[in-house]
């Protein structure tokens, strides 16, 4: 094992993030069931969120929360991880949930209307 920590971590984190994105994409592009497609979308979202957090991570950093003890952690030469990606991902997760909920409600309505949830059966609008 001549891989150092950073390489392992980047393979592990980036790899799983990109893997999630690709797997999700596969589900969206290939799977016919609407629910499966929505699952794919949420997997893509998860991958991107992971990627975002990974980008903000700093080796040896601590969470950007000032506990009473370590109040001057930055000044003392300590490191904190980048807080901005975390804040953004927080927002993105909630938005992702909202979109998923709307998507699933549409799936329910499509199923009611067409009695099927296969996307290739639902194409009364075309050309």
């Amino acid at each position: 094992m001549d891989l150092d920590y950073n390489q392992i971590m980047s393979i592990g984190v980036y790899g799983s993030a990109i893997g999630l994105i690709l797997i999700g994409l596969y589900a969206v592009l290939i799977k016919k069931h609407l629910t499966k497609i929505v699952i794919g979308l949420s997997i893509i979202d998860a991958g991107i969120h992971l990627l975002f957090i990974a980008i903000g991570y700093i080796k040896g950093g601590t969470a950007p929360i000032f506990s009473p003890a370590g109040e001057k952690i930055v000044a003392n030469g300590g490191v904190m991880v980048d807080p901005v990606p975390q804040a953004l991902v927080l927002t993105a997760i909630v938005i992702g949930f909202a979109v998923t909920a709307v998507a699933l409600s549409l799936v329910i309505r499509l199923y009611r209307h067409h009695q099927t949830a296969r996307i290739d059966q639902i194409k009364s609008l075309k050309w």
Partner: protein
Amino acid sequence: MMFEAIVIIILAVILLAAAVYAVMQKDLLYAVIATGVISLILSVFFFIMQAPDVALTEAAIGIALTTIVFIITIRNTSRREDEVPMDHEPDRNENDN
């Protein structure tokens, strides 16, 4: 430090396996539970990467709420992915690319 890395690798493998399972599983209920697992592992990832806020959010929203919303949907639609189409319209769209 190396411990973290090993944990990450193991989790990554489980994560991707769960993702593949979620995509390939024909029974949507299991697939949805697999997505819950993805969220769970993701939340651990976030925790390891010093993002407790995000981990908490992912745990509450990703694991609990998203999953339950999916389950409600499945209850209202069809559970199997390979449901028999209602109208036996020939699938002309299969190879239009």
